[in-house]
């Protein structure tokens, strides 16, 4: 182009710059829009499925800048050559061919002619950038929308939940172990049970997982309650034995029955592992020894037993709620399956809601179901006990209630009332029924 007449060169340079700008605006917006759309899709996917990528998403705004790279490469490859610029100039000038001829022949004789002068007076083409840039704002809006969407956090995986369930139980067991309220054998059994619950929860987390955990926790509570009963029984029998032994003449005969009961109470304590830290005398006595005959030894023994029982009671008090604060089964965490009604009733038994199970149909009194649906089978919801181990055993009483002929009818009635209350409250229920019972009696 530098061989062209000087009168034409400024116009050609201006045209070359305009063509370069037009060509760039032809290429870059397409890449920028494509890049923005792709980035917006990536952002959308990350927002929905990849929370870890969330901090890096704002960098996607640089996509239009990155699009400059391929745009520049393509621009360089497609750039207008001097002959093409001259051809465009000639065409803009009406297709006279003068510029083309001057470029090809480099003939100076026509450089200052009227033809060449006319050829340099073409009008530059008008820039219309929005023809290509029009697609950019929608792409930017799409990108902004994709980034504006809140990050979706996926539900915790089964492993995490299983670990949480098992962790709560393990904490409870550790608490009991720390207070020396469980034996090594019991600890091993509990650990196996916790491991089983954990593995089951890893496979599938549903209501039964929490029910199993609650059941094990109830079982632990029942064990502790049994130990408390055994300690209390031992304290009572010890008190009765002491009263009988210090009764003066004929005390040996009178103390025979309380002594036998005390021995049974000690056996029960030993069986429940509550004599682990006791003195050797108590250990021997529980292992089948006999109560000492002399008063001094007997007094020492009773003092030792009283002290041990007091320590045990103290440890029991430190156990607290046995991990119940870790959370129990909450039915609201498990939404109903599709097609089932979400109405929870008014909380009263027989009036819908959880108290009636999943049957939330209205009471229509004779029009319960259509004939076709009458015998339709319905799958039971999950949460039923899967094995007998999921059920906590009924509290093992330390011994059968014993009637004392000497006791009055009134005192017998008082004793019965106190024992009956304890027994009723300690009775194990299926966890899913506990909330129903609680609601009923709380009202």
């Amino acid at each position, binding site marked *: 182009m530098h061989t062209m007449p000087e009168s034409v060169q400024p116009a050609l340079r201006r045209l070359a710059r305009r063509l370069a700008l*037009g060509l760039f605006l032809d290429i870059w917006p397409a890449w920028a829009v494509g890049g923005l759309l792709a980035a917006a899709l990536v952002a959308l996917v990350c927002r929905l499925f990849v929370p870890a990528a969330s901090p890096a998403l704002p960098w996607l705004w640089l996509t239009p800048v990155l699009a400059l790279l391929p745009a520049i490469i393509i621009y360089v490859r497609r750039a207008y050559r001097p002959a093409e610029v001259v*051809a*465009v100039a*000639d065409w*803009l000038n009406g297709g006279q061919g003068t510029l083309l001829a001057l470029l090809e*022949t480099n003939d100076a004789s026509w450089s200052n002619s009227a033809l060449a002068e006319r050829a340099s007076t073409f009008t*530059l083409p*008008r820039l219309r950038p929005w023809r290509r840039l029009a697609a950019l704002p929608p792409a930017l809006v799409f990108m902004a929308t994709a980034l504006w969407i809140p990050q979706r956090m996926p539900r915790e995986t089964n492993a995490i939940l299983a670990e949480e369930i098992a962790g709560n139980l393990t904490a409870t067991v550790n608490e009991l172990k720390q207070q020396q309220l469980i034996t090594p054998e019991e600890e091993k059994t509990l650990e196996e049970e916790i491991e089983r619950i954990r593995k089951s929860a890893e496979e599938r987390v549903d209501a039964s997982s929490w029910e199993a955990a609650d059941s094990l926790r109830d079982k632990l509570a029942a064990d502790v309650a049994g130990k408390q009963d055994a300690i209390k029984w031992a304290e009572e029998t010890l008190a009765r034995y002491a009263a009988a032994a210090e009764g003066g003449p004929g005390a040996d005969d009178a103390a025979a029955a309380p002594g036998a009961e005390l021995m049974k109470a000690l056996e029960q304590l030993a069986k429940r592992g509550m004599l682990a830290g006791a003195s050797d005398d108590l250990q021997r006595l529980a292992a089948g020894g006999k109560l000492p005959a002399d008063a001094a030894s007997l007094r020492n023994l009773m003092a030792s037993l009283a002290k041990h029982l007091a320590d045990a009671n103290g440890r029991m008090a430190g156990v607290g709620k046995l991990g119940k604060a870790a959370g129990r089964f909450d039915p609201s965490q498990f939404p109903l399956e599709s097609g089932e009604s979400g109405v929870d009733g008014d909380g009263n038994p027989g009036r819908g809601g959880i108290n009636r199970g999943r049957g939330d149909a209205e009471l229509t009194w004779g029009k319960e179901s259509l004939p076709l649906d009458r015998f339709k089978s319905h799958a039971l919801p999950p949460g039923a006990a899967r094995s007998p181990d999921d059920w906590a055993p009924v509290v093992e009483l330390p011994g059968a209630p014993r009637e004392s002929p000497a006791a009055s009818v009134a005192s017998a009635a008082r004793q019965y009332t106190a024992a009956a209350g304890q027994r009723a409250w300690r009775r194990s229920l299926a966890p899913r029924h506990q909330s129903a019972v609680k609601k009923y009696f709380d009202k």
Partner: protein
Amino acid sequence: MTQADHQLISPERVAAGQEKVGRVVGALRRVILGKEQTIDEVVAALLARGHVLLEGLPGLGKTELVKALSRLLSLDFRRIQFTPDLLPTDITGSHILQERDGRKDFVFHPGPVFTNVLLADEINRASPKTQAALLEAMQEHRVTAFGETRPLPDPFFVLATQNPIELEGTYPLPEAQLDRFMFKVDIAGVERSVLEEILATRVHGEPPPLEPVLSASDLHDLFALVDAVHLPRAVANYVARLVAASHPASAEAPEAVRTFVKHGCSPRAAIAIGAAARGLALLRGKPHVGFDEVRRVAPPAMAHRMVLDYAARLDAWDGRRVVSALLDAIPEIERGLPQTLEAR
């Protein structure tokens, strides 16, 4: 030879050539009133040494134009009135048995084709066999009779006329014959003002007397000058794309070509456009061809070379209209403006 080796014709030579051509054009415009465009086309074809087929209704000055041209160029001029009983030998000439010095011998009597300017009046009235007698003469500027080939005088032009409406007893020119005409010039009717001018200046319609304005050597100089007119590559590219797009199978062919054209133009059309554009450029006083010259000469050079389909006749499309659509569809420059730029 590289492009840099090309040199444009000097402005002085161009001016001199334009002046000579201008004399011919000016004289023709005095004879044929209101036909400036037709005259330019005929002169451009003449400068490109091409044959011209003039088609128009009777009385529009076709024959008068050719006659005036021959008088202006001081070239040998013959006229053949084509009739249905015209024989090929009536054109090319024939051997006649003659007795010389007691010996009888066949002597070749050259026909009217042995001339510089041949007016083939109403060429479509002769039979195809007779029309074919001109094939070799028009393409190769020679005649073969009885196994002997004889060259025709240089220059040699065929300026033929035909009437488009009298189809009874006529023989349409075959495609091979049409292809040999550089231009087919349509002679349109005259405007009212032109008629008025004719009535006012010519009592019996006789044209003004003409004197030769160019000698044979001047004409040969003009031919050399036309050959030296520069054809830029971009313009040649445009011509090539135009001719290529006239074929319906071409990827660049516009819809009109795909619909109405059966066979596109031959390479001879591209050569004719290039040559005629050079002649027109000289006529305009330019040392080079531009896109404008190509657009100007493309219709008369291409319209008669395209074989149209029957659909074209049903939809009243002729060659000129198809070429017009072609010119609208094919951009002059192969690589135009970016989409974000708009020519004002």
